[in-house]
């Protein structure tokens, strides 16, 4: 056990020395990996912000419920209670037929038209504001409301929600695709760096094997190298995205004051950062594994 720990400590020191021995190459590799990670990561952050923003305006996502003219006052009160108690509904406002008519009268040119009417043709209505901009929820609630007695007509305003959501879906798929492609880049960079290392260290590897080094002993520093290089690249990628967000926020603040809105992008969260580093480490390990399997075989078969 102690020998095993010593081996790992030694491999780790070995790896650290390899990084220190070529700081320029280490930095460049970290940069390449960082840029490759920053593109999909930036896309992801942008989407998350847009989603947040969409959820913000969705506070206005509403369902209008028009009542049958024969609904009595007590029925209306019961209905209001029922609507308020429905999960997914944040608030319910009652618009009486008289209020609706008064509202309409204020629209220029409508007053004359309304004056020609003998009676108020408008129904009583409820406007239910939803808690979330979820098109599926809106549709389900609309269906439920339609089946309530004394409800004549239900109108959802979910078409735009669906549009936003399908746009976000397209965005997410694009980010995934870019991410998958650039993950290959990360694996390829690691693969190649380790190939070069194996070539330059082929003497050391050969001699170590001849004096009794196991394959695991030979491979371990390369795995460490791949993982560490991935993590370095991940840190660089996170830094690039956060710096870009800070710069963008500066400009967005100017835009926000023009439109009287507070528009700013959120920085990467701790869990996002952790996920990126883990992902980069796994990809680094993968590249190292592929390279070691491919290139050490030639030396090992001796």
């Amino acid at each position: 056990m102690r020998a095993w720990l010593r081996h790992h400590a030694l491999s780790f020191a070995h790896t650290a020395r390899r990084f220190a021995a070529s700081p320029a190459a280490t930095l460049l590799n970290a940069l390449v990996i960082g840029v490759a990670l920053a593109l999909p990561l930036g896309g992801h952050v942008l989407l998350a912000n847009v989603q947040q923003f969409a959820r913000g305006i969705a506070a206005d996502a509403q369902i209008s419920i028009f009542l049958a003219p024969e609904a009595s006052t007590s029925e209306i009160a019961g209905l209001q209670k029922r609507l308020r108690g429905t999960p997914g509904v944040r608030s319910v406002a009652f618009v009486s037929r008289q209020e609706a008519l008064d509202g309409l009268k204020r629209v220029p040119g409508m007053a004359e038209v309304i004056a020609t009417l003998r009676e108020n043709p408008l129904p009583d209505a409820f406007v239910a504001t939803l808690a979330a901009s979820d098109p599926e929820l809106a549709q389900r609630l609309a269906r439920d409301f339609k089946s309530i007695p004394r409800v004549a007509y239900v109108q959802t305003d979910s078409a735009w929600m669906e549009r936003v959501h399908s746009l976000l879906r397209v965005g997410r798929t694009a980010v995934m695709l870019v991410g998958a492609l650039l993950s290959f880049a990360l694996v390829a960079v690691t693969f190649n760096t380790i190939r070069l290392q194996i070539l330059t260290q082929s003497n050391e590897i050969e001699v170590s094997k001849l004096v009794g080094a196991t394959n695991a002993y030979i491979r371990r520093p390369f795995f460490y190298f791949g993982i560490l290089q991935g993590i370095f690249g991940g840190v660089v990628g996170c830094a690039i995205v956060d710096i870009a967000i800070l710069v963008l926020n500066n400009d967005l603040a100017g835009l926000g004051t023009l439109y009287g809105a507070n528009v700013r992008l959120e920085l990467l969260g701790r869990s996002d950062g952790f996920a990126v580093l883990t992902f980069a480490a796994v990809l680094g390990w993968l590249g190292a594994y592929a390279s070691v399997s491919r290139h050490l075989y030639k030396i090992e078969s001796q």
Partner: protein
Amino acid sequence: MGTDLISFSKVCKRYPGGYEALKDVSFSVEPGEMVFVTGHSGAGKSTLLKLIAAMEHATSGSVLIAGQNVSSLRRPAIPFLRRKLGLVFQDQKLLYDRSAFDNVMLPLVVTGHPWREAAKRARAALDKVGLLDRERANPIALSGGEQQRLCIARAVVNRPNILIADEPTGSLDTEYADAIIDMFRSFNQVGVTVLISTHDDRPIRRLSPRVLTLNRGSLA
């Protein structure tokens, strides 16, 4: 048979392309023996030694080391065989990116010895070959004879039962060569089994040891 440390039986080694380096070679070495392998260059001396260290594998026949069949050894077991052997290579295989001391440390480092104990052993090995005062030198700065002694220090640092040397005196003048051979003899005198290949008959005349003579891959 049971007492043999090294035992070749009907060993053939054919390289890809059809070249037959060893033909039907059988011999055995008892613990504590010192054996010279001679023959003209290309007679199969190096191949014979490489088969012992599992650097090559026999095409047919069996190579037993302490009762273990090396030619059928699974790959993961090879490092553990090599830890019992001390190898001195014809092309030395020193690492020029580190000091003489670090070269000798290598066999102990790869087996995970505690550093302090390993360093003590490495210094003892360097002392035995008379290189203790050169431990910080890069091997490239050492003379041919010193480099060869460094190889020997690296070969004996893990206290092997068997010491195998492929042409250890090949490029040295006679005075140095004698000193190297005497060094092997002193290890043999403390119980290490020694196998040395050489095309030089001077040590054989001098010491009259047991000799295996190879002629085009066959034992004479």
